């Protein structure tokens, strides 16, 4: 859009004019008193406003947890909704402190965009949804199809790879936002819609007639999604990364937002370190952090599992069963694994 274009032009000029050394994001956030967090803002289960207007989802929780750790108050977050195309420029130019917008970790992004991926808060994969009336049973039957996709995503690239690899042709229809993509599919501008699988069910449920579309069985890619920070600020990188690790470690240690009060008397050295009662964990990252930073994050936001079940788990509209999936803890057959907090 024109507005969007002007925005990227402004962001590009921010790269031109910003001072050479502005490494201290942690200090900036603390002196500002709010964390500015880039999210999708329109993606149920990841970041979308609830009825009261509060941003909810696993991506939003990362922002809340970082704010709790860094500022002592999880509510001190300012959310900036970003489209897939805008997000990296917004982060690189300093418009947001953290980008937590279902963003896939890839080599090119890591190496050339001036950004660093911390860790993953959701492991996804790409899939297709098609009009039921077409009678398509597999992604391999999509030769020649028109496919709605969100522009500026890995989704767009994986789809290109997949069709090329299978010697098939397709016509992409690239839109800016999720609602536009859905409207395009629903209106019949395309035969199929592709996105990260976690979203397909949600998008399908938003169709006027959900039974008119079916989700195909194939998963065509790996989409490790996680929070991203600017390159060149190691303290901030460590802060965000370890807040996420702490939420995972808390789950492993059985520490949750509801029992964290009683855990303060625990003798387990691991729990003591997590709560900041032993050793210099948070302080080790930066003297500007309070040593109970992880405790604040878990207390105010919850551990990894709590956040998952609250927003994308079986009992939510997204309804993704965690048990037995890649998103389970490593000790339960999944791949979610955090290094030791010591």
């Amino acid at each position, binding site marked *: 859009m024109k507005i969007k274009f002007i925005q990227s032009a402004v962001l590009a000029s921010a790269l031109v004019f910003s001072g*050479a050394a502005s490494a201290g994001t942690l200090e900036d956030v603390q002196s500002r008193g709010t964390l500015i967090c880039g999210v999708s803002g329109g993606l149920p289960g990841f970041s979308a406003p609830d009825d009261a207007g509060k941003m909810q989802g696993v991506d939003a929780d990362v922002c809340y947890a970082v704010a709790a750790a860094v500022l002592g108050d999880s509510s001190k977050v300012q959310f900036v909704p970003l489209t897939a195309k805008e997000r990296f420029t917004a982060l690189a130019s300093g418009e947001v402190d953290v980008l937590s917008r279902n963003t896939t970790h890839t080599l090119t992004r890591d190496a050339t965009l001036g950004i660093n991926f911390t860790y993953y808060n959701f492991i996804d994969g790409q899939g297709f949804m098609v009009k039921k009336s077409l009678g398509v049973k597999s992604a391999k039957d999509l030769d020649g199809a028109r496919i709605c996709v969100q522009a*500026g995503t890995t989704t767009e690239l994986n789809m290109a790879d997949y069709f090329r690899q299978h010697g098939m042709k397709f016509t992409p229809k690239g839109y800016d936002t999720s609602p536009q993509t859905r409207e395009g599919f629903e209106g019949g*501008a395309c035969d199929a819609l592709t996105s990260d699988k976690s979203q397909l069910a949600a998008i399908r449920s938003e169709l006027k007639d959900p039974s008119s579309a079916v989700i195909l069985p194939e998963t065509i890619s790996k989409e490790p999604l996680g929070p991203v920070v600017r390159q060149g600020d190691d303290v901030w990188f460590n802060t965000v990364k370890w807040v996420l690790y702490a939420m995972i470690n808390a789950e492993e240690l059985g520490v949750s937002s509801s029992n964290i009060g009683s855990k303060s008397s625990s003798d387990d050295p691991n729990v003591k370190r997590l709560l900041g009662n032993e050793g210099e964990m948070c302080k080790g990252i930066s003297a500007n952090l309070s040593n109970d930073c992880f405790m604040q994050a878990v207390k105010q936001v919850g551990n990894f599992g709590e956040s998952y079940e609250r927003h994308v788990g079986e009992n939510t509209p997204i309804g993704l069963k965690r048990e037995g999936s890649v998103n389970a803890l490593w000790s339960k057959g999944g791949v979610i694994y955090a290094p030791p907090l010591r």
Partner: protein
Amino acid sequence: MVKKPSQHHANIPLHRNPRVRAVVFQVVAISLLLWFLSIIAGNTVSNMAERGITVGLNFMGQVAPFEIGYTPFWDYELGVSKYWEVLVVGIQNTIFVSIFGVFAATLLGFIIGILRLSPNWLVRKMASAYVETFRNIPLPLWIFFWYVAVFLPILPPPRDSFILGAGFFLNKEGLYTPKPLIENSVTASIFFILLLALVVGLFYLRRWAKKRQDATGEIFPFASTALAALLIIPVVLFYALGSPLHLEYAEMGKFIMTGGINLNFSFFVLWFALTVYTAAYIGENVRAGILAVSRGQSEAAHSLGVRHTPTLRLVVIPQAMRVIIPPTISQFLNLTKNSSLAVIVAYEDIVNVFAGVALNNTGQALPIIAITVLLYGTLSLGTSAILNWYNKRVQLTER
């Protein structure tokens, strides 16, 4: 003794000599600007380097990892085509929709502007309702509205295309027409040369008709003659030469039609939205231009017995042009810039595929935004230049 002017100049001290001062100031200003720009450039590159971004145009030669749907003037091939080709496709699509938009909006704008001054109350009110509706609702909403609420629901899916006859089909992918393929290259060339001759001939006919009219006042019905000639002669020629071309018709494939020529749906919706929106503004310019022509002119024509329409066409509009053209140039530029809203209908203009997708995948914000800005600048200056030239001509022929 009177000093010669040159000697007079030589006596002024250098620092007060206006010519010297002008040059010095300009040199200083330009040096400051260059210095400022070099600081910006240096600062930028070091900022980016610090974040691990290398700035440059190297990415242009790399293979673009994504597909582009609508590339009517370029053979874009996924896995082979490079980023510079993405730029080319983007530029082509931007220019394509802008040119069609400018012509259509001008035509519609003139009609609206004239209707707004119609002697008929109902027509006048309807035209002003048109202008108000379009000017008071933002264009992105219009585009989305035409796309999602009007054209997508109206048109059938490719499988159930509207069959318009003569190999024309209409569906949610746009309009499909037969595609002429050359059967016999010798007769085909003769065919095209004769067609060209026809056009040139009509051109001369027009000059002759005008001369004769100026000299004798006799009117030659040029428009209807030309129309008839253009409709009949090519068909006659075509069969006389034994059908040198054959037509490839669009056929239904598994999902969409293949073959034929496709006038893309996204292109159509964007073109339509830009046209009807900009026409509202051009209509206002036309109205203002017509009102600026003194009433005496049309009254004089009327008293000579000239009717309303010929008065408008022959007396009022030629004089109104000089008022209409300058603000209309800026509407043309607006239309071109507004075409950057293309992504709403998934049309692949330069902002969508180059300043959007390519930027997102390469992170080369600076070169990409600079190129895009440069392109819009060039298009704007080019459009202004052409129209200013036209404007001058119109002004000169004014009596």
